């Protein structure tokens, strides 16, 4: 009788789709870590871009920050969390959850008028101030400022 672990491993009827790759080595983890450190340093440097490159750099800083954040997110998820080497079921669950979360909160932020008016002074479109609740219900003349 022979026992071939490698042959049975990925195609096993008992554990279909389960991959048993050992993932990166310690050295590769160190490389990924240093990439993350460099990306973080680049992110932090945007804080001083306006001093170094002028006000115009503010416009590109935000897209750059978002791109760097997404790269860091996937580096940690795929390598440190082993998603790249794990079962496809986990990978599919992760992507499904991520897309669902982005959709849900994208809709929520849109419903809250976030994209046109984030409350920042750079947006000249402040939300309308609702009347005080007392005035909506008051029937007595002279009790509301409008009276």
């Amino acid at each position, binding site marked *: *009788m*022979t*026992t*071939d*672990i490698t*042959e*049975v*491993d990925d195609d*096993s*009827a*008992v*554990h279909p789709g*389960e991959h*048993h790759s*050992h993932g*990166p*080595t*310690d050295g590769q*983890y160190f490389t990924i*870590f240093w990439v*993350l*450190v460099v990306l*973080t340093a680049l*992110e*932090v440097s*945007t804080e001083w871009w306006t001093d170094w490159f002028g006000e115009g750099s503010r416009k590109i*800083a935000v897209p750059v*920050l978002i791109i*760097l*954040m997404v790269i860091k*997110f996937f580096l*940690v*998820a795929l390598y*440190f*969390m*082993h998603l790249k080497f794990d*079962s496809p*079921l*986990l990978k599919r*669950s*992760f992507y499904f*959850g*991520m897309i*669902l*979360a982005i959709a*849900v*909160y994208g809709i*929520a*932020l849109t419903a*809250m008028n*976030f994209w046109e008016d984030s*409350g*920042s*002074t750079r947006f000249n479109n*402040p*939300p309308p*101030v*609702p009347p*005080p*609740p007392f005035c909506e219900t008051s029937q007595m003349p002279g009790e509301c400022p409008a009276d």
Partner: protein
Amino acid sequence: MSDLAYEEVEDLEFPDDVHATSTGISNEKLGMWVYLASDCLLFGGMISTYLIYKNRPAEVANLAGSHHIPSDYFDIPFTSMTSFILLMSSLTMVLSVNAIMRGDLTRMRLWLTATAVLGGLFLGGQVYEFTEFLHHGLGFTTNVASSAFFALTGLHGVHVAVGVIMLVSLIALSFRRKMHAEAVEVIGLYWHFVDIVWVLIFTIVYLIP
């Protein structure tokens, strides 16, 4: 290959059949991923709330408070340092998982201890940051922007604290009973998730103006 050979392989991979499941993924690991997915939605909600209120400290009817906002007091170099500490703790965590997979218990304990210490340092940094905000008069109930900020970063801090407790428990358990590599891996998943959430918070809350 005979059925006997299949069983033998299974025993090699999954001793005592504790992990034999229909998905091929152990219940513990799948459970952790499901928990992390639910936590994603929780943090997504908190981040969205912060985004909505961050520049509107006193615009909510009947909740008007101080016009100070958390970003007035951000200390980016200091927060960058704490981010670096958390990133480094993720590295030590994967090194401990690799160590236990090689059967090297001593190194696993060493890297787990390093991870717990780095997590503790991050928490210390967060406590210092919160104290500084309080000295500037920005507390949890100052206005909606500060409430959203403290709730988001505080919740993340609680996650880090729970992670440190799990790491310390794991180190203590490793002296008392036989360790399964998967236990370290599952706690590692939690720890990396905490790191991933900080990657998002650091950029969205601290760096994007």
